[in-house]
Each structure stands twice: as C-alpha cells, then as structure tokens.
C-alpha cells in the first residue's frame, strides 16, 4: 500500500458505497413522497396518491391518485407555524424532545399516549427541517398538538412548573412579556391565564410575544392523527 492513487481509490469507493446506499438510495425511495388522501383503517381502501397499494378484492396492485376536493395528509404548516418551527430549531428543543413514535411493542410510546400509530416517512414531507431527535429528556412531541390545549402550551413554556411540577425543562419566560395591565383598555385579550402561585403579581399580565404565538402554533400543528396507506402495513 504505497501508492497514493490506490489509497485514494480505496477510500473513495468505501465512502461512495455508503453514500450511495444510505443517502442516494434513501433519497430515491423516500425523497419524492407525495401527500396522500385520507384513508380509514379497517374500511375500504381509498385511492392513495403516489404509492402502490393492494386491492384486497382483486389482489391486484394499483397506483393511487388524489381525487379533487379530498383532504390531503399530512397538512401543510401555516405561516405562523412555519415561523414557529424556526423558534423550535433555534431554542434547541430537539436535544430533549423527539418527534417520532415507535411502533407498538418497541418501547412504550403507545402506552405513554404519545401516539396511536407508528410515525412513517410520509408524515415528515412537509417539515422543512426534520427533527426526529435522539434524546427523550422530555416526552415525545409527535402528537403534542393533540394532547394539550394552546393555553397549556403557553403556561408550560412560560414556566414548566405550572403544568409539570418537578420538570427540568428550562422556562421560556423570555418569550413572554410581563407588563402592567393597561388602565384604559383593561387586560389584554391575548394575555394568558397564570395560576396565582406562579403569577408575576397583581396588576400585571403575561402576554405572549409573536415568537411564543408562533412556537405554540407550530406545537399545535404537531399531530399525526390521520391515516396513511403504509401504516396498515407498518403495524
């Protein structure tokens, strides 16, 4: 092993192998998934866009197609939720919260109520930044938009001790404005309700900034409560 070109050829092909195998083939298989129209488990298969599915009655494989007017899943994020994704990213939520439900029997994700179906690649096609996460210092957030109300999210972000006593989640009070209640206009309609024990004081109100509103909009959009064709095979 004395020749530079030979060594280079070797190290080139070894890395090229995994790059093609993992990244490129992964991209070919999953890179252009389309949203699917709604299907119902345990009912007749509806046409699904972009994937082949087996017709139980004939046994034939068919290519699905969206019908006009049908609801299409997953749903695209709205503007506020899109901005909230940036906040989620910049606060580093990913280091404690995953966004993936593992299948039943593998871990306890179902039993903890984090989801009632496994997450599949199609769930993430509208996520500009896919943050599956590798750590669960906090619970999984795949379905956090289903599990709690907006007010709960705001209270939890303002001070996690309100909703989850003993939690080691940092408080994001800097996303909220604590200000005196206006004498002319009275309490702001946007102010969030804070229990007395955590209230900053009489005559004050806690108003979420735009960033907090966006972040909560993003969290409320984290939901995998629709069915996709591949789920029926996944479980």
């Amino acid at each position, binding site marked *: 092993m004395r020749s530079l070109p030979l060594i280079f050829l070797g190290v080139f092909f070894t890395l090229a192998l995994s790059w093609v195998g993992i990244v490129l083939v992964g991209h070919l298989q999953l890179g252009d998934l389309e949203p699917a129209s709604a299907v119902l488990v345990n009912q007749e298969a509806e046409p699904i866009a972009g994937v082949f599915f087996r017709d139980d009655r004939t046994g034939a494989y068919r290519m699905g197609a969206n019908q006009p007017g049908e609801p299409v899943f997953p749903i695209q994020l709205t503007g506020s939720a899109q901005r909230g994704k940036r906040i989620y990213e910049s606060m580093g939520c990913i280091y404690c919260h995953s966004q993936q439900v593992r299948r039943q029997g593998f871990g306890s994700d179902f039993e903890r109520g984090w989801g009632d179906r496994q997450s599949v*690649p199609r769930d993430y096609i509208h996520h500009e930044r896919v943050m599956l996460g590798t750590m669960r210092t906090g619970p999984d957030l795949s379905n956090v938009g289903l599990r709690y*109300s907006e*007010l709960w999210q705001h209270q939890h972000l303002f001070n996690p001790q309100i909703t989850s006593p003993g939690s080691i989640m940092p408080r994001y009070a800097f996303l909220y404005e604590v200000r005196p209640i206006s004498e002319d206009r009275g309490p702001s309609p946007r102010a969030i309700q804070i229990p007395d024990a955590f209230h900053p004081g009489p005559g004050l109100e806690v108003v979420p900034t735009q960033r907090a509103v966006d972040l909560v909009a993003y969290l409320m959009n984290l939901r995998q409560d629709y069915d996709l064709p*591949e789920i029926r*095979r*996944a479980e």
Partner: protein
Amino acid sequence: MSDSDKSPYPPSGESRSTFEGHRFSDEGLQRKHAQLLREKEEPSEGFSPMPLFLVFLIMILSFWAGIYMVEYGGYFDAFHFDETATPGILVQDTGPQEVDMLALGRRVYSQNCAICHGADGSGQAGVFPPVARADWVQDNPERLIKVTLAGLAGPIEVNGRPYNNAMTAFGRLSDQQIAAVLTYIRTDPALGNNSYPVSPELVAQVRAEWGARRNAWTGPELEEIHGPVTGNWSPSNGSTPETAEE
C-alpha cells in the same frame, strides 16, 4: 521562523552540519540533539501473521451479517418498517371486541390525565384539582363528560378547596375511551372513589347535545345545569337537572 522556509533545502541525505549550524546556538544545538538522540527509532512494522481465531471471527460475523440481512432486510421496501413483519399483509378487521373498561380507563388516564392530576390522582394544590376522593368525580357523570369533552376554565371548588386554572379539552378521545376513563376514576378503589360507572352511550348522548361547543366550561355554568356538586350522586337521585332540583 520565516528563515526556515527560505533556507536552501539540501538536495541529499548527506551531512547537514552547515544547514543546521546557522540556525541553532551551540547550547541549543546540544539541547536539540539531546531531545533527538533520546528519541527512539521511527515506527516500523513487524510481520506477525494474522491470528487464526480472527479468520474464524470474520467468517462467523460475515455469516451472521448475511443471515441478518435476509431475515430483517425488510425486502428492501421503502414502506416496510417492522423488520419482523411479512410484506403485503393489511390489518384485518377483527370486529367488535369485549373491552375491559377498567384496564382501558387506566391506560387512558395514564396517557392523558396523569401529567396534571397525578398518577395517584392527588392533583396539585390551587392548580390541578384531585380526582382521588373528589366530590366532583363522584357527582353527576354528565358534568364530567362535559368537562372532558370541552375542557374547564376558571375558579372552581373541589372538596371545599379553591382551584383556578384551565383544563385541556379531550374531545378527540372516542366515546368508549371517555367512558372508560371516567368509569376508572369513579370506581377504582385505588383512587378512593366509589360511584357508578359511565357508559359509552351516555358519552355519545352528551356529545350529540354539546359536541359543537368549542370554548371551555366554567364552574358556574355547570352548576346552573347540574346544580351544586354534592359528591353522592346516584342514578336514583337523578341524572337530569330537574330531578336534581327536586
């Protein structure tokens, strides 16, 4: 150090005393030599043969790798996520099944309620009312169903103590799940409550009547419909407001 770049590079491996000489003082030269001389030889390689067990190890691992990929390769299918499952099998409709309402209720509780009301149902003073040994829980089930479906906000009193916060709406749960969780908190002896079970039909009935409601209930609103919380409701002393008032 720039001079080290500019100094002529000796074209061969012969003695370089002049080359070195102009760069070091005598003492420095000695020091440098001391360091250099105590240094051991540059690394070289022995040619011991490969141990035999390594050959076997590589063979065994390669064999295992092949078996593993065949067994758990998932048919190289993009939509095959469970490595133990066989492809192409759709979930079969197994039809209605007998459900253990207590077990289902305990699970729904631990998934949705325990984070605020506590795994043991003790709640948190001033913020989250208890469900264990609570008058609200042992009162009219319709009140609980309404709270579960649409949430509850503002001040209330439970067991005579004040609480003021807002509860999330759980309308996304099915009738059966809501019935199960309410049955669980009303009847499970571990929570210290002893009241009557709740049927899915009752949940469906309340949902049909109030399902369109979007904003959370308040304590006074519920009291207007169901009367004050007594904590000793039974089907005989009334499930409707009219009978409660009698």
